[in-house]
């Protein structure tokens, strides 16, 4: 109970501040308060297009997240095994980490159109995060245990399960947490720029056009909640996968 109060009290404090600021500004276009935002959220959630938008964005971003994660893990393993792969992957990973998402979005819009833009952008943002972190995990694996496994001719599956996985799980935990948040941020940003219909990004853009600040905040809260739920499910999956270690 004490723990819940400790977490909830600051949130409540900042909501009150938000409401006070909204009262002081007294202009719904510039700053919608929490009550109005909540009203908008309830109003939005009653419409079919809201759920269609959430479903579409969620599906696209999660697919991008999965693609980025799988590629990140596969390439980090190849880079761990082969110095050459590591050397050739380094500039690409550096590029993906530093080039602004907006540049990639515009380039992809020219090449591929807007419909699947958030899949590619999420994957591109997730890939370097997972790659770097997983490679770090592989590099930190106890080489004495690997030598033991080699000497005993331990089955490959068991080497992964008993030696690599316990080592990688803590790295996965931190990188997945970061990556899922980044996937949503960049995926939605890509939708705002690319404007695919019936997506959260499109909803945000329309809110901006019609100066509906309340709606803008409502969409934002929806994104935060969805991202939070996805993160928790992901960490739970890791916990189950890693057994005692996670």
């Amino acid at each position, binding site marked *: 109970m004490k723990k819940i109060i400790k977490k909830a009290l600051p949130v409540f404090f900042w909501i009150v501040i938000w409401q006070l600021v909204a009262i002081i500004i007294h202009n719904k276009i510039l700053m919608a308060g929490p009550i109005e935002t909540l009203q908008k959220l309830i109003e939005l959630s009653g419409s079919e297009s809201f759920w269609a938008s959430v479903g579409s964005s969620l599906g696209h971003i999660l697919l991008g997240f999965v693609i980025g994660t799988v590629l990140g893990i596969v390439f980090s393993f190849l880079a761990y095994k082969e110095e050459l792969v590591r050397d050739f992957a380094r500039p690409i990973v550096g590029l993906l980490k530093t080039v602004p998402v907006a540049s990639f979005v515009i380039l992809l819009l020219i090449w591929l159109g807007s419909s699947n833009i958030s899949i590619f952008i999420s994957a591109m943002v997730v890939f370097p995060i997972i790659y770097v972190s997983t490679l770090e995990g592989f590099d930190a694996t106890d080489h*004495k*245990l690997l030598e033991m496994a*080699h000497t*005993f001719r*331990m*089955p490959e599956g068991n080497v992964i399960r008993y030696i690599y996985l316990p080592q990688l799980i803590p790295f996965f935990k931190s990188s997945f947490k970061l990556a899922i948040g980044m996937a949503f941020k960049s995926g939605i940003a890509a939708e705002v720029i690319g404007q695919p219909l019936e997506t959260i990004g499109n909803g945000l853009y329309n809110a901006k056009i019609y100066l509906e600040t309340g709606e803008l905040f409502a969409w934002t809260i929806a994104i935060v909640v969805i991202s939070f739920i996805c993160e928790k499910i992901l960490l739970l999956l890791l916990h189950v996968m890693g057994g*005692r270690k996670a």
Partner: protein
Amino acid sequence: MTIEVKDVTKTFDGRKVLDNFSLDIESEHSYIIAGPSGCGKTTLIRIILGLDKPDEGSVKLLGDYKYPYIVSGTVFQEDRLCDDFTAVENVTMVSHKIFKETAREELEKLLPAEVLDKPVRELSGGQRRKVAIVRACCIPNDILIMDEPLTGLDEKSKEEAIRYIRDKQGSGPLVITSHSGEGFDFGRVVNL
């Protein structure tokens, strides 16, 4: 099967650890490699296992042997156990041919039953060493190679462990390194 260690020389940081060392390791024989710390016991074992290459000389498998490498039940100088997993899992994980029931039965010969399902990180140094010994003996092997296997064991446990190792030796050779060679009166002592 014979493992021929011939004229092996190995140098670390300008210091010759092994100098023209030769030994034929034959089936049904036991070899106690004795000598003080730093005399090259572990280096010799690593070379036999193919984990290190000698600077000069060679290690060959003579006779009719179906693998290009030595299938060894090995105890390393360190325990090399997976800390988050139980004693039983540490034994079964190294081979699909070791079943849970067999592992438990073998571990109970050296360890109390109540520790077998605890993660090995919770076990004492001596208990961990025993898990490493059982793991080496359980895996189907053509030779047992053990680097200071009795480290951290009390006198009674040492006797039990030696009895257990001898019992599991079968027809393959047994190579043990030991600081003093004390307690191993059953094999040929090779002083390094």
